[in-house]
């Protein structure tokens, strides 16, 4: 039917492949333009913005308090941590500190949410690699965390719980006891994950020595969080620049990549950093739960803003927080009005994703998927 007319009709050329925006393993609506030589990626270009919801523009048009729910929707897997960063930024601007009890509650809920977020990272990474089962195991535990966080906040995913000046509602002793019970349960489950995925020979083969980010590249591209720690940099804001008082008093380690199965900074290291961070969070929660002091959970002065909008003095504040995905920063500029004139977000996923174009060339398409998964991006945060 299609006769080959000349012999040199047969030729090879580079194939352009659009990975996304609708693709099972781009974790949302990321689009990567790939140039492929067979299975091997020769060039790549990230295209983001499919989930751009103008969060920064909205921030300039709503009051300080009204913007808190919008931060939920940035990194929707770690809403508590986003709330926390925003609250701290506003508190810095109006020079208020949350009461002691609120600070300890913040630590507990933020760490719980960190575990939930890392569980998603673990589960979806399994799916990226082709193992479907870990996802369900991870969701089982995430379900318990969501049930726990639902009790004080009333929401399962987008909490709007940590607010400027404190937290939205108080927690009771029963809740704290249940959190501790969850910690015991989780420790047992965590071992299951390692049996299932971490120590699987195929999994190690697929992730070790893949997507190696050297230390200097990670720093230059502004990678933070597990991506930076996976490259062997011991940097954790909770330890190094404690943004909440309790972090100073708590004992925990900062897991870093060690190149156990391949080079330092490969996908497996990043994955393993996340897995160990879950256990560190459990350790923090264990210490924090009995130490939650009595007292108010919301600053008196600030709670007035629920009636009349807050008007901070002109000035600007930049606050960084250790999110599950890296350092979330809010840069708020006030000119004395009821809403900020600039509400800039340093989204950790955005910065971590920038390194992708460096990592992809030279790898296979299956590795590309593994690399995207190991960066653990949330497109809601990348595009904001």
């Amino acid at each position: 039917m299609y006769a080959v007319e000349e012999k040199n009709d047969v030729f090879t050329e580079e194939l352009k492949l659009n990975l996304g925006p609708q693709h099972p393993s781009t974790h949302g609506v990321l689009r990567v333009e790939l140039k492929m030589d067979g299975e091997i990626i020769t060039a790549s270009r990230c295209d983001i913005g499919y989930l751009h919801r103008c969060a920064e523009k909205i921030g300039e048009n709503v009051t300080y308090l009204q913007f808190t729910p919008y931060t939920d929707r940035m990194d929707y897997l770690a809403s508590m941590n986003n709330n926390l960063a925003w609250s701290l930024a506003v508190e810095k601007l109006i020079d208020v500190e949350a009461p002691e009890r609120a600070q300890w509650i913040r630590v507990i809920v933020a760490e719980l949410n960190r575990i939930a977020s890392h569980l998603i990272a673990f589960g979806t990474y399994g799916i990226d690699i082709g193992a479907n089962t870990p996802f369900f195991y991870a969701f089982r535990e995430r379900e318990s965390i969501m049930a726990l966080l639902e009790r004080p906040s009333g929401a399962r995913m987008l909490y709007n719980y940590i607010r400027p000046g404190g937290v939205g509602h108080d927690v009771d002793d029963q809740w704290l006891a249940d959190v501790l019970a969850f910690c015991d349960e989780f420790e047992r489950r965590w071992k299951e994950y390692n049996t299932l995925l971490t120590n699987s020979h195929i999994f190690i083969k697929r992730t070790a020595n893949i997507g190696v980010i050297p230390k200097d590249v990670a720093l230059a591209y502004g990678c933070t969080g597990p991506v930076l720690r996976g490259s062997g940099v011991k940097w954790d804001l909770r330890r190094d620049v404690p943004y909440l008082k309790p972090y100073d008093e708590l004992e925990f380690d900062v897991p870093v990549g060690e190149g156990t199965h391949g080079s330092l900074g490969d996908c497996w290291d990043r994955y393993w950093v996340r897995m160990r961070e879950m256990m560190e969070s459990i350790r923090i929660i264990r210490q924090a739960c009995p130490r939650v002091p009595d007292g108010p959970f919301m600053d008196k002065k600030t709670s007035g803003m629920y009636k009349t909008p807050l008007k901070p003095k002109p000035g600007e504040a930049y606050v960084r927080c250790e999110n599950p995905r890296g350092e979330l920063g809010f840069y708020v500029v006030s000119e004395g009005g009821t809403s900020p004139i600039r509400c800039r977000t340093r989204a950790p996923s955005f910065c971590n994703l920038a390194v992708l174009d460096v990592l992809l060339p030279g790898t296979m398409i299956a590795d590309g998927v593994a690399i995207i998964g190991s960066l653990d991006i949330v497109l809601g945060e990348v595009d904001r």
Partner: protein
Amino acid sequence: MNEQELHGKLSGAGVAGLGELDTTGPDPFVVVEGSGIRPVLSFLRDDPTCRMEMLHLVTGIEREDRIEVAYHVSSLEHHHSLTLKVVFPRPEAGGHDDWRPGVPSVADIYPAADWHEREQWDLLGIEFEGHPDMRRILLPDEWIGHPLRKDYSYPSEHGGIPLELDAVPMYERGPDWEREEKVRKAKKEERKAGTPLRQPPAPGSDRPHAGGQAPASSKGQRHVIEPHSGDDDDGKSGAH
């Protein structure tokens, strides 16, 4: 080192274009001339006592009289951080949407700046001279204007799809529920009368450029809402 010492260190090294340290707000910052941002950042990165390995953020801030570009850098080794600012006073004439201040790109000093600078160009229209790949990043390539500008005019259509001009965006609506109620009632009346849905807003409209290009003459092509009874009354039906 705190900001004071860092500023002293910078001025001691005689880096060109360095300005004053501003400590009025909660976060102090150092003002730098536009031409001085590259040498200052290079110095901060390479000096062993500063070691600012990481650039966190490049931010454009539009104010009444000026546009500022802020750079947040920090050191992991020494646990200190610094904010630098380049200020562009707004020109007397034409200092609006078409005014694009230019600042040298630092994408080769800090690769992290690459995407941040693209984003600031995209949303605020700040030109970064010497940037390797100055494209829009969040918005589509064919987008017109820079939406984070205060005088940004909302487009009436995008890619041939008319945008809803009647709807009052939530952030513009504010707590003025009466106004919203009024708009909703007016819409309902309009629908009952069977007039075309999309019409240029009244001349007294306070929204800039709203409906300036609204295709008012294309009555025949527009969807006309049939005046059927029991219609929902929340203005959703405009989303055709």
